[in-house]
Every structure is written in structure tokens, then in C-alpha cells.
């Protein structure tokens, strides 16, 4: 946050990106595919972290932004026949517009009321997907046809279903969002967001229009989540209402809290951790949710600031 050690933070981010790149060549096939998915979902968590970690606004409705991107991109391909790049942008635009609208309404509330209002708007969004099942496929969802999931540059074309292309696309999105969000939180605007989190009243008295700043944060957060959703639809080829359900609003909160709120890499670490706990434990018992539950409680008891947050607090103060 402060002026201290920007070089260290940048090297760390570039190092993580480089590591993920190298891993692409080392990982066994299954973990290669899983990591691609995790990177896309980590972007969802990073979008959530933007609002929850830095502005301190706890939303329980972020599934709607993810789903806006998912459906915006997916339906653009399925119903309108758009190409991949345009559909991706369309999905992001849907998320941005929705976030602006929701922000204008929900930011009139604070604290628990904000949680509930966002949750209810997300519920409305979810029900609308069911209500307009003719176009959205309702709860069954729809497949984004494989032939349409191709990136064409003149003569050459890249199939998004190819594992390497998919991994690299996911990594590309992840890297861009990581660098952009870390630039935002280190910027003057990021400083204002943290000030709002720490003491909104005081921030107002420094001459800041906190409503507009928060609104911008909601839009940035919603846009990033929509980018994740749009990428998910195009890379994995399925859109469905379960991605708009309450569960998918709670997941990014969990990922962020696990990895460490208000840390740039926490969302990735949290998503990774949660995925691997489920993946490994589900191999031993069908009661893996029990283990997830216990893990959550132990973490919150002994690492209340999440994995990276605790590391930052105890050992590495410079951690971004």
C-alpha cells in the first residue's frame, strides 16, 4: 500500500506469472486442466477481493456478476452467433452495466443490509435466468458449441478446447487482472479505497466523494468477475443457472478469506487451496464437505487473516 518496496511486489507478481507459465510444461495432464480452471476462478476471487478486501464491502451477490459475464458471452455465441473476442467483450460489458446498476442501488445501504441487498438482487438475477428459460436454457443450461469456440487470426486459428491454448488463455487473463488490480491498489485511487474501508466518515471529511469512489469500485469488481465468467463460458463451453446461485456468491468470499483479504495473491492461493482440499479429500471419502468445514474453522481460528494475510502479519510485512 505505502511507498515501500514496489520493486519487490512487482518481482513477486512477475515471478508467480512465470512460475505458472513454467508449470504448464511440467504439470501432469489432469492438474494442468485443473489449474487452468482455478486461474479463471481466481480471477473471480480477485474481482471479489477488490471490493471486499480493499473497500471492506461484503457482498453476498457476486455470483450475478460472474453469471452476467458467463451468460453475456455464452448467449452472444449461442443466440447471436458472435465470434469469441466480441462475445468476451460483450460478457464483460454486461457485467459492468449490471454492476453500475446494482451499485447505484445497493450502495445506499451499508454493513449487513448491503450483504442482504446484494444477495437478494443476485437471487432476482438467478430467478430471471430461470424465468427466461427459453433463451437461457434455464437450470439445465446450454452448451456453447465446440466449433464456435475458436479464436481466428486471419489464416491461423486457435481452438480454445485445446488444453495448451486454454491454459495460456487462462494464464493471460489471470496475469492481466493480477497486474491491473495490483496497479489499482497501489495507485492513489487504491489508497482512497482503503481509507474508505478504514473510516468512511473521515475520508469524506478529506474531500472525497466516497459514494462515487465506492461505485467505481463496485463496477471494477463486477467487471473483473464478469471477465472471469465470460472466460469460463468460452473456455469450458457451458453456461448454467447454478453459477448464479447463492453458492457461487459464497465461494469467492471463502477463497478470498482463505487466501487473505486485501492481498493481491490471496485470491489465487485461496482458490488453489480450496480446490486441492476438495480434490484430494473427495478421493478418500464422500464426506469431503465435512473436511472442508473443519478446515475452514481451523483456519479461521489459527490463521484469521487467511494464508497470505497471516504470513504478511508474522513474517513478510512487504507482501502486496
Amino acid at each position, binding site marked *: 500500500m505505502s511507498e515501500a518496496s514496489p520493486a519487490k511486489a512487482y518481482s513477486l507478481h512477475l515471478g508467480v506469472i512465470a512460475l505458472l507459465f513454467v508449470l504448464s510444461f511440467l504439470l*501432469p*495432464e*489432469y*492438474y*494442468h*486442466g*485443473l489449474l487452468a*480452471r482455478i486461474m479463471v476462478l481466481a480471477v473471480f476471487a480477485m474481482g471479489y477481493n477488490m471490493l471486499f478486501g480493499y473497500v471492506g464491502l461484503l457482498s453476498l451477490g457476486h455470483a450475478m456478476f460472474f453469471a452476467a459475464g458467463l451468460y453475456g458471452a455464452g448467449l452472444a455465441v449461442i443466440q447471436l452467433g458472435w465470434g469469441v473476442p466480441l462475445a468476451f467483450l460483450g460478457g464483460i460489458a454486461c457485467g459492468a452495466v449490471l454492476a453500475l446498476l446494482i451499485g447505484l442501488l445497493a450502495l445506499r445501504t451499508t454493513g449487513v443490509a448491503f450483504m442482504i441487498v446484494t444477495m437478494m438482487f443476485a437471487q432476482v438475477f438467478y*430467478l430471471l435466468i*430461470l*424465468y427466461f*428459460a427459453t433463451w437461457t*436454457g*434455464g*437450470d*439445465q*443450461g*446450454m*452448451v*456453447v458449441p*465446440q466449433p464456435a469456440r475458436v479464436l481466428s487470426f486471419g489464416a491461423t486459428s486457435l481452438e480454445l*478446447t485445446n488444453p495448451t491454448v486454454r491454459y495460456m488463455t487462462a494464464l493471460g487473463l489471470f496475469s492481466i487482472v493480477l497486474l491491473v488490480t495490483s496497479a489499482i491498489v497501489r495507485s492513489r485511487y487504491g489508497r482512497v479505497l482503503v481509507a474508505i474501508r478504514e473510516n468512511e466518515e473521515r475520508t469524506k471529511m478529506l474531500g472525497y466523494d466516497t459514494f462515487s469512489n465506492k461505485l467505481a469500485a463496485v463496477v471494477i469488481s463486477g467487471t473483473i468477475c464478469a471477465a472471469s465468467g465470460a472466460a469460463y463460458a468460452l473456455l*469450458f*463451453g*457451458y453456461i*448454467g*443457472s*447454478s*453459477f448464479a446461485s447463492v453458492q457461487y456468491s459464497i465461494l469467492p468470499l471463502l477463497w478470498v478469506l482463505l487466501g487473505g483479504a486485501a492481498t493481491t495473491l490471496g485470491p489465487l492461493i485461496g482458490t488453489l487451496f480450496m480446490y486441492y482440499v476438495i*480434490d484430494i479429500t*473427495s478421493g478418500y471419502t*464422500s*464426506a*469431503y*464437505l465435512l473436511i472442508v468445514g473443519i478446515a475452514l474453522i481451523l483456519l479461521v481460528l489459527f490463521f484469521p487473516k487467511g494464508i497470505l494475510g497471516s504470513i504478511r502479519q508474522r513474517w513478510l510485512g512487504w507482501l502486496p
Partner: protein
Amino acid sequence: MTDKNGFFDLSKSTLTRRTALKGLAAGAGLGLAPGFVRYSQAQSSAPIKIGFQSHRTGIGAAYGRWYEKTTAAAVKAINAAGGINGRQVEVIIEDDGTDPGRGAEVVGKFATQHKTDIVFGTLFSHVVIGSAPAAGENKMPYFVVSEGHHVASTKLNRYVFQPGITDVKSQIESMAPWIAANAGKKVTQIFPDFAFGYDHRDYLPPALKAQGADVIAQIAIPPTESSFTKFFPQIPAETEVIYHVMVGPAVLTFVKELGEFYGPNRPQLFGFIDSLEATDINSPGLEFLDGSHFWEGSPRYAQADDSVAQKAYRTAVGIDDNGAAVGDPKDVSTAAHMFGCWETLYVVKKAMEDAGYKGPEDRAKLVEATEALTEFAEGPEHPQGPKTFNGKIHQCFGIQNISKVEGGKLKVVHKTKIEDGLYEAEGDYTTQAL
């Protein structure tokens, strides 16, 4: 009413573990001479690995358990008779949480980590549709037992098959003539406001129309609803038949409240047993269903005219004459659907043998061999009855049962013909590249 076994009974959940299946498979393979002979002749001695995508948790968990039981029984029988192409069959189970996102991940895990030969066993439509792209991308033959119309709609891809259970569209079309002739001409539909309901919403009215009957009202119930009485006034007074296809845990409430609302002067009731799968028909509050009719894929209760194959199948799976687990009369099975697991595995066996399937490199051959199948004769491998298979749309068509609730049992009163449920193909998977 006393059920001391049902509660703190941990054995149920441990029974169908992957390890148990492995043990069964291995035991059966070693113990039987013919199997052993073919085993040694096979070019590869490694077992054929079938990835079973199971609803162990989430909303589909009640089905998942019985799908696992049926699958274990079928695999045991197949292995006892020498396996497939002389190789034993091993089932690897992964839980998909009845969630499409996780479903796709599980298919990926089967393809790239377990490296199974096929993936099999999914029931819930949204999981099938969510997993289908992953199956196509991994070129992984994916045999579902879902009864949804999604496979036959040809909106999925060439690697997805449903050869063991008739799809809902066909079921509905074969029900319509009987409803119009025996139940009534003015039909009100009550269905869940999600995909399973939409198949009924979309396909029943034209099917009834063709028989001279009409759907006069359609009431869609939101998926999260847990009380229903407030919707019943929307049922028109002149309704002769209520056609209900509610599913999920709130179904008992639905029936009970319908009973309280109408009392003895009710219209005719026709339902899909999906509503009451894994639920005792004699549960308190269901008395109201006495005398009403249900669609059943395979009958829950043993019937007087059951074939030898049907009897053998019931014994193998371990269900008694009332369709409950042997030794636990409260543990009611999902008999109307789970037969599909049994039959699908035998279709896989047939197709693998036709294709001379040796390993994952032969998956394309397996797809073509499956598409080449046309008919399944009734018998030990297909105890529910004869079926035809349309290789272009990857869907089978079989006979359906209409059962009447009588004295706390379901008695089959009508069996449809395969032709009743045939419809024009909506596409052709075989034109897609492999």
C-alpha cells in the same frame, strides 16, 4: 413406523465405496474359471476402467446411492461372466455434488487422471449438459442414464450416449394416448419450473392434441418452493385430470397438500413416479394417491407376470418385492430409473466387444460401434424390456409402464409399445467429426 435401522446406520454409506467395488471385481475375477481363462487370453490383462460420475451429495444424492448399488450389481454380474473382452471391469466413483461445474471437472479427472475408458452414470440433466463439453473435448465416450431429452435433441456432441433409458419426450408421447382414452380430456399440468418440467410442458400438449384431449392449464412451480397450496386455486374447476411431475424433496408435501385441498372429490391424477422415487408410497399423507396412476420406467413392485430376467435383476440388485432394499423395507429404491445403469453397462459391453475395444486409443471405434447398434432384446441384459436404438441421435426407445396405486402397491395396468414413443429425429450426431 419404527425404523431403528434407518437412522444411525453408517454401513449404508460405506457399502458402495470404490474399494468395495474393486474388491468385488477382483473377487469375482479370481473365483470363476471361465473368466479366468479369458482373462489370461486377453491381450491386456489390465481391467477396463469405467468412471462413474455419481450424485453422492447435493440434491441428487437419493438417486446416486441406488445408481451405485445397481451399477455394482451389474459389474459384479459382468465380471462373473468373464468381463468385457476377457477383461475385468473396474468402476471408479467420483462425486459431482449434483453440480454441473463440478461435473465437468470430474469428467476431466476421469479422462486425464484416472484415464478411464469411458464415463458413465449421470442422472441430473444440468450435470449432463454441463459435463458434455468436457466429454467431447477429451474425446471421452460418456454414457448417461438421465432420461432427459438433451442427448436426443442432438444439442450435445458425438461422445454422449443414452442407450439404457428412454428419454422424457418419448415417455410423454407414449403416455398421451392412454391418458386421453382412460383418464380424461381436460388436463391441467403441474410441473417444476425448470428443465425437467419444460420437457413435459412442451411435449404433452401436442401429444394430447393428437389424441383429441387438451391441456387447459399449465402451472409451473419455482424450484425452491416448499409449500404448494397457494397455487392450487389456479387449477381450473373443469379439470378432469391433474398431470403432475413434481420432483425433489418437497414432493410429499405437494401430494399431501393436494389431498387436503381436494379431499375425496378429486379429479383423476396422473403422475410421473419421478415424484416419489426413493419414497415409500405408504408414507403418511400419501393415502390420497390411492387409485391414481403413474408412469414407471421399470415397475417398483414385483408384478405377477415378471419375466425370469426381471426377477434375476431384482435379486442381483438386492430389492424385495416392494422395491425396497432387502433387509430394510424403509429404504425404497429408485426402481423406475436405476435399471438404466444395468442396461447401459450391458450396451457398453456389447459395443466394446463389437469394436474389439482394447484401450483408450479405440474410443472412436467404440463410438462408431455404439452408433451401429439398433436393437436390444429383452433378457438378462435388458430386464426392463426390449428396446430399439437410434444411432443418429444416440438414444434408445423402450416400452413404458402405467401403474395404478392399489392397496398400497403400484400395479402395472398398461404397457405401451415402443412405436408409441417414436418421434422424428431432430438431428444427426454421426455427421460430426470424431
